[in-house]
């Protein structure tokens, strides 16, 4: 025992000496300087989206006993994902309150009914508990449209009964590619992961990136997006030198960092959420890997920079099929939404609040166009939403295909580079391609 204790002591002393004598070498930089987020078109200029504000605060006139029309909304409001779903609920509620206060829909059509948002909690976004919520909305004859679900699993679990009841449901955040293949009256105000992945890859390759590392968190969302990015990058002639996965519960990314530093890719993509993304980014930068780092909507949160640190969070961009009011340039519609949202709730409007606000406004317009709401039926709402043509929203203008997917022209993906320590909305992928 004593002998091995001595061995330990000698080891410790040796290590200390080594630390003291070791020479500092410059950080091994990987990644060609040509492939950086700075080259995104409009990055330096700080181009804004040039949307003009359309909201006007109208005086609230109290009216007695208007008939009530209800909109449903469901999602995980108390479980593990509630931080992602609360903005959706809040934004939908804001749209309803604004319409009730002004007495008209966002397109100016007069409303003669009182709108009410009926919120149901689907804790932890479980697929098993979604169908009873679906049934409760169907059984409530005042409900003419439903916003939700928030996650893809719970959204796919409902739909059959909605179809039979002719009840329109619009998701503001479910992006799994498969949801729109079932042919029910389902619409979404976001773009599927397959399209986001391909458009992100187009931006990456337009920056001159040739060698990529594509990593995901083994979850359906992260893997699906990463597969789409890898496929499009390959199609564009880039090499996907590392295609690996790391469990989202992992904190120690050193194995992956070693692999990346050996391959020296000029771009690293993470398919997953911001927590592990920040870990990977921080540990990469500490190892001197300064390659472009990109991530999808799972990273579109200020926590990405907070957790990775502003030093590490450079040469980074995030894409999202969403317009996040918090990161929108001043003067845009989304910035106006941010102001109204913050005034009402005292917190910032985060991911998918614009898309939920738009979904609610579509329903409100559908109701207003049915005789101010007095002659509204589930069918009149469905017909109105199906026929929308460039419906002006905060996030984009909406036209739907027959499967409920956005028309190709409406499938915009926004690019958010990290600029001086904060995500900033640059514009769509098409605008960012240099």
């Amino acid at each position, binding site marked *: *025992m004593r002998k091995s204790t001595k061995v330990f002591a000698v080891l410790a002393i040796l*290590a200390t000496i080594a630390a003291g004598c070791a020479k500092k070498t410059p950080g091994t930089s990987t990644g060609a300087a040509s492939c950086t987020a700075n080259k995104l078109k409009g990055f330096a200029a700080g181009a804004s989206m040039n949307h003009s504000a359309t909201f006007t605060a109208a005086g609230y006139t109290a009216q007695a006993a208007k008939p009530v029309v209800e909109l449903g909304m469901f999602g995980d409001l108390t479980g593990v994902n509630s931080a992602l779903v609360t903005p959706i609920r809040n934004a939908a509620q804001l749209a309803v309150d604004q319409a009730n206060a002004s007495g008209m829909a966002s397109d100016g059509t007069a409303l003669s009914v009182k709108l009410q948002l009926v919120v149901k909690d689907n804790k932890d976004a479980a697929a098993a508990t979604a169908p009873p919520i679906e049934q409760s909305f169907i059984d409530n004859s005042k409900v003419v449209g439903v916003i939700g679900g928030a996650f893809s699993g719970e959204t796919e679990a409902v739909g059959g009964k909605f179809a039979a009841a002719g009840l329109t449901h619009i998701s503001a955040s479910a992006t799994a590619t498969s949801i729109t293949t079932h042919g029910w009256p389902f619409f979404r105000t976001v773009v599927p992961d397959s399209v986001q992945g391909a458009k992100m890859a187009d931006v990456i390759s337009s920056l001159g990136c040739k060698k990529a590392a594509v990593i995901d968190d083994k979850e359906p969302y992260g893997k699906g997006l990463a597969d789409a990015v890898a496929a499009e990058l390959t199609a564009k002639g880039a090499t996907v030198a590392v295609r690996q996965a790391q469990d989202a519960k992992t904190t120690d990314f050193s*194995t992956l960092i070693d692999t990346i530093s050996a391959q020296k890719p000029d771009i690293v993509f993470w398919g997953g959420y911001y927590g592990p993304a920040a870990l990977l980014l921080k540990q990469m930068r500490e190892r001197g890997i300064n390659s472009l780092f990109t991530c999808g909507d799972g990273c579109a949160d200020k926590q990405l920079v907070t*957790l990775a640190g502003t*030093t590490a969070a450079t040469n980074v961009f995030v894409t999202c099929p969403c317009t996040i009011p918090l990161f929108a340039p001043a003067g845009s519609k989304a910035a106006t939404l941010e102001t109204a949202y913050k005034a009402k709730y005292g917190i910032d409007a985060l991911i998918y609040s614009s898309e939920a606000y738009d979904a609610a406004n579509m329903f409100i317009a559908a109701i207003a166009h049915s005789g101010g709401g007095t002659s509204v039926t589930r069918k009149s709402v469905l017909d109105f939403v199906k026929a929308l043509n460039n419906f002006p929203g905060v996030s984009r203008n909406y036209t739907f295909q027959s499967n409920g997917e956005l028309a190709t022209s409406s499938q915009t993906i926004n690019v958010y580079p990290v600029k001086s320590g904060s995500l900033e909305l640059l514009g769509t992928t098409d605008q960012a391609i240099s």
Partner: protein
Amino acid sequence: MHCITTDLPFRLADGIASGAIIALIALGYTLVYGVLQLINFAHSEIFMFGALFGLLFIRFGVDHGIPGPIVLVIAFIPAMLASGVAAVLLERLAYRPLRRRGAPRLAYLICAIGASLFLQQVVRVWRGSNPEGFPTTVTPAPVFTIGNVVIERRQLIVVIVAIVMMIGLDLFVNRTRTGRGIRAVAQDPETAGLMGVNIDRVVSVTFLLGGLMGGAAGLLFGYSFGQTSFSIGFTPGIQAFTAAVLGGIGNVRGALLGGLALGLVQNISGGCFGSQWQDVATFVILVLVLMFRPTGILSRSVGGTV
């Protein structure tokens, strides 16, 4: 095979650094098992307490303009104390009542799982679900080279602290009176009790030691990777438990050996087969080792048992 040729120096350095942290956590499992034959599944949360209280102190220090290196060094005190106290309280409140009543093993196990969930959720309610970032104290980045092995400052700090802790623990268990008590209870609690060893005190000290090591590991982990959250203990906890079994559970030096072996196997297998396979490779090796040495690399009877 890049993983065992050109990348090997990197992988050795990272594997040893990761392994050193795992070994420190594994000590907590192995000490408690040695004395009580109990797998303390709540130890992963004791570890998480170290990371959390280390973070809170580092934040406080950095906000008050204390230089980073000093903050990091002093942060070991709150981190280790918080984990040590939490471990002792856990034993007092959760395990001792069961021990008094001579509860069956299974009751301890369920109690341990319950305590683990309880501590996790308490921290979740207090700190929220989102991970929290560590402010920079000592830049981990600057890279040193020893021969052709590239080493980061972070890895040196982790390995040196871990070795110092382990030497301290080894000396304590083998040289002090209390350490002799721990070894006596581990060998035969009844006889030790008859010989005048205060078993309750020995058990408390054992939990305290495991907690102190776990707290230091938590701080090193948070410092190394820059984040902590209520659920951070899960993966390192499982890895450390595996390392303790691999090294020979109940054996202090086995935990060290198991931790280092696990860190190296994880890193090298991740390099060879892709990081998605590293856990699979690790457990295949664990099963293989246990097939030939069912009691682990250093079995309980060999070398220094606690």
